[in-house]
């Protein structure tokens, strides 16, 4: 399953943001207006979804005010799942990327690995409360009960849609092709980093919405290639080092024997 976000239809009302907070019982943060409607300014352990506000000026009269959704993309090949050393994060067959809070050791590698900068951490929790990473769960509890995610449910403009990934991709492509003068002709998330469950169509370049420009290969493949090379490296190194050590010892032995024999020879000749 997947969520389709249409940036043109979004009006930045933050209904989705507040619905997410309410459904997941997340505390509000203390915020300040530092010159933008965007608040909280980024994701955190208490904010699993926030909207980015982007004023984009183009030549002439091309002023746009675009609103970008920032929440877990629930990738098909999640970098965070690949990165987590204890497999606390996992990808479910239905789509959501979830995590086991009883396994997380708080190493925060997933936070580094995620190209979308999604996982966030409970910085204020001490040893006894247990500080773990937190992020959007795709409202897996609602979806499991046949409902749609809280954010989708609240959206009034039709900017958010929930459903089967292939169907939503088809819908998205139909929509952008029917209005080529409005939409960027690309469905973001269809193939990025191997495909994500969050699909975006937009009237402004995706970069402007804060989405990184990514290739189609899953990001972690580079790291995983290194990992798969490991057993070979071990074999190679062990063989190589053992070989060198053996050669060196043989040479030393041979040299010692030569020295001993010459000693002996000396002893023999001297006695």
């Amino acid at each position, binding site marked *: 399953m997947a969520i389709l976000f249409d940036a043109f239809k979004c009006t930045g009302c933050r209904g989705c943001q507040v619905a997410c907070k309410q459904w997941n019982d997340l505390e509000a943060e203390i915020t300040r207006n530092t010159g933008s409607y965007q608040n909280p300014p980024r994701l955190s352990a208490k904010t699993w979804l926030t909207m980015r506000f982007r004023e984009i000026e183009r030549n002439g009269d091309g002023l746009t005010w675009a609103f970008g959704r920032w929440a877990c993309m629930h990738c098909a090949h999640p970098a965070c799942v690949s990165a987590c050393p204890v497999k606390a994060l996992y990808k479910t067959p239905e789509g959501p990327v979830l995590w086991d809070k009883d396994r997380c*050791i708080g190493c925060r590698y997933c936070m580094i690995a995620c190209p979308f900068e999604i996982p966030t951490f409970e910085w204020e929790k001490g040893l006894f409360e247990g500080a*773990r990473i937190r992020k959007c769960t795709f409202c897996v509890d609602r979806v499991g009960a046949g409902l749609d995610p809280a954010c989708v449910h609240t959206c009034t403009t039709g900017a958010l849609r929930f459903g089967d990934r292939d169907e939503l991709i088809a819908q998205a492509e139909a929509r952008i092709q029917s209005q080529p003068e409005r939409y960027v002709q690309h469905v973001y998330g269809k193939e990025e980093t191997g495909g994500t469950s969050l699909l975006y169509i937009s009237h402004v370049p995706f970069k402007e919405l804060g989405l990184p*420009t990514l290739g189609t290969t899953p990001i972690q493949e580079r790291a*995983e290639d*290194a990992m798969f090379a490991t057993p070979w490296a071990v074999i190679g190194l062990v063989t190589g080092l053992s070989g060198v050590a053996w050669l060196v010892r043989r040479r030393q032995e041979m040299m010692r024997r030569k020295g001993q024999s010459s000693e002996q020879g000396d002893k023999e000749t001297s006695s």
Partner: protein
Amino acid sequence: MTSAARPLRRQMPIGTLVLGGLVVLAFVVAMIRYLGGLGAASNLNDNYAWGVWISVDLLCGVALAAGAFTTATAVYIIGQERFRPILRPAILTGFLGYLMVIFALLVDLGHPERIWYLIIFWNPHSVMFEVGWCVMLYTAVLALEFSPMVFERFGLRQPLRLITRATLVLVIAGTVLSTLHQSSLGSLYLIIPDQLDVLWHTSLLPLFFFLSAVAAGPSMVILESSISSRVFKRGLEVDLLGSLAKAIPFVLALYLALKIADLGIAGEFDNVFDGSRNSALFLAEMVGGVILPMVLFALPAIRRNGMTLLLAASLVVGGLIFNRINVGILGFSRPAEAASYVPSWMEFSVTFGIVSAGLIAFGLVARFLPLFTHAEKAGEEGTAQ
């Protein structure tokens, strides 16, 4: 052959007090961290989840402990016996280094009490998993390589004999493990091509991390020897160290060549000189930490003088620390929204405290264990000469 410890004189009692104070401070900060969370004891935030404790304590700590495996490889695998006198201190440096890394992790991890979960929960896809296992195993190897000193001190002949027999296996295991995790610390950052500046991010990251560790290992040995010769009023084995340093310029040259080639092939050479902050950092790192020491170490005159050896070695070590900080913190780009990261004094206090604890431990070992005596040559124990 007796292995009596040489008499030592404590040279700087004040110094020890300072170190002790730093350790206590680190302990206090660690308590703050445990009670109030990571946010209470650091300026880490969701934009910069890894800070000084990872970039310096972990990355540098591991890299700078490379002296252990490089020296052990030199002695036991390549057969360079002349380096045996500096082997034990190198191993101790390595062992303490890895213990310091583990202490740092115990402070940095969100759930430090779950640090052992790596043993039972496996994710072979994860570089971190490999790093964790290798560090665990290698620390065990180091402990075993360190144990002869203890066994000797307490006259435990049987265990001593067993360990001595196993030395080659341990060294091979240690070298393999070190190669793996020195490089995989670099692989940790493979997964962030768009967040780490192109000047540092490359598929060759693991190789660069490994090479810099190989260069830093001997440099650390030089550093450690220079300091302990002062502190413990021992002579500095300049020719030994000079000999050890011979290999360094080759490693640095290889590093430099690969770096240039890598940037050139990726077409990112322009970024090196584009006047941005990152390019300045990169140039400083390369010039001060690679090119300059490479040139210095190549000069025999430098290698014959203890002071210049120390200078050149410090450049390498400093360059490595700088590199790890660039890769881990400064070379990162995260959205402009919200926090940047400036390490807090508390983070530094933990780092310095852990290092201080290491120094104190080193001093204690030097005083109470046969650190500066030669290890028994393998297969020659009991042979009277």
